[in-house]
């Protein structure tokens, strides 16, 4: 169930919440397993509601992202394994996720996996559709767009003009 607003979070997480967040955050993204949910920036918070009852807030990269259900199931599984009996994963939309939420470590891992990481964009600025994207294989900036949509909604398909290899680009959102 997707809800639009997030309730007020406690001012600072408890040590238990911090520990559970590390566990939930370490879950790999189902479609890009090289990055974790924490590195992808989709884990919004972990709150302990009561004894053995936890609520996790997750935000989708795209509204229709089909990986959200798998992410939720994976989070529930690791927290159950840690002994938490009741785990509720809530999907929140606000504030909207942006590719700027991907951590530097996440960007490095994407590039290592042959996926050009998204370029950072100026706050509230337009999506930079035309600036050059660096080839994750040879490092050349001479690359061209083949299609705005690729293997998943969050990626575009590009080709390097220098080394001729096609590659996925995590497009800016």
């Amino acid at each position, binding site marked *: 169930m997707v809800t*639009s607003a997030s309730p007020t979070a406690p001012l600072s997480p408890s040590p238990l919440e911090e520990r559970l967040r590390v566990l939930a955050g370490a879950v790999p993204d189902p479609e890009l397993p090289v990055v974790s949910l924490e590195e992808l920036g989709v884990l919004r918070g972990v709150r302990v509601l009561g004894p053995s009852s936890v609520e996790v807030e997750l935000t*989708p990269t*795209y509204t229709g992202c089909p990986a959200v259900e798998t992410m939720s199931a994976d989070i529930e599984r690791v927290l159950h394994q840690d002994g938490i009996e009741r785990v509720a994963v809530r999907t929140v*939309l*606000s504030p909207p996720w942006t590719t700027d939420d991907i951590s530097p470590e996440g960007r490095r891992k994407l590039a290592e996996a042959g996926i050009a990481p998204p370029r950072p964009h100026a706050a509230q600025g337009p999506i930079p559709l035309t600036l050059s994207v660096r080839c994750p294989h040879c490092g050349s900036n001479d690359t061209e767009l083949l299609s705005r*949509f690729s293997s998943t909604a969050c990626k575009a398909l590009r080709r390097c003009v220098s080394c001729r290899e096609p590659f996925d680009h995590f497009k800016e959102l």
Partner: protein
Amino acid sequence: MTQAPTVTAPAALCLGDDALVLAQRLGEWAGHAPVLEEDVALANIALDLLGQARVLLSLVGDEDELAYLREERAFRNLQLVEQPNGDFAHTIARQLYFSTYQRLLYQQLANSSGPFAPLAAKAVKEVTYHQDHAEQWTLRLGDGTDESHGRAQRSLDALWRFTGELFWPVDGLDIDWQALEEGWRASVTEVIGRATLTVPEGPQSGAWSAGAGRQGLHTESFGRMLAEMQHLHRSHPGATW
């Protein structure tokens, strides 16, 4: 258009049905698009729209019941989005008209304080890519061969009469409809001009039509689309796998 009636159906239903129905239409291209990249692109656009539809319909009731168990007259989508895919140029013309509208609409909603602001702020970023996709293809088809130019123009002309309904005020949406219409017309005119095509003339809604999609009145092909979309769920109620 002289006077636009105000639509009183729930706004979430109107916007949710637009997204759901267009997602279904675009999904029909899977395996049939002219090139593999477009197969993937149209399916991805459909997926974005389906995600938006799920959020919007969940504001009204049970998403599955709303999608699979309503009769044709209970759908409140624009007639534009239910139009058959036709050839690729026809689909692109429909995408140009609709994605331009949806981006401007969501942009206004994202800046409002209403219940649709969180979804709109999220969706406007996705729709920006849809609009860019439609514009790039409009340019390529219009400024392409004589054949692609002719098909693009015929498609723009054929769908023009469904564009008046886009600007019918919907109750409960905090929208400046006049600004929306002006922005839409300016944007579409600019792209069509650059594509060496001509902005269609003639009415944007027809006296021949009994009404509009927002009133629950739909065009002939919509029933067949719904039959395909709903038959599995209706044949096997409650089935899961």
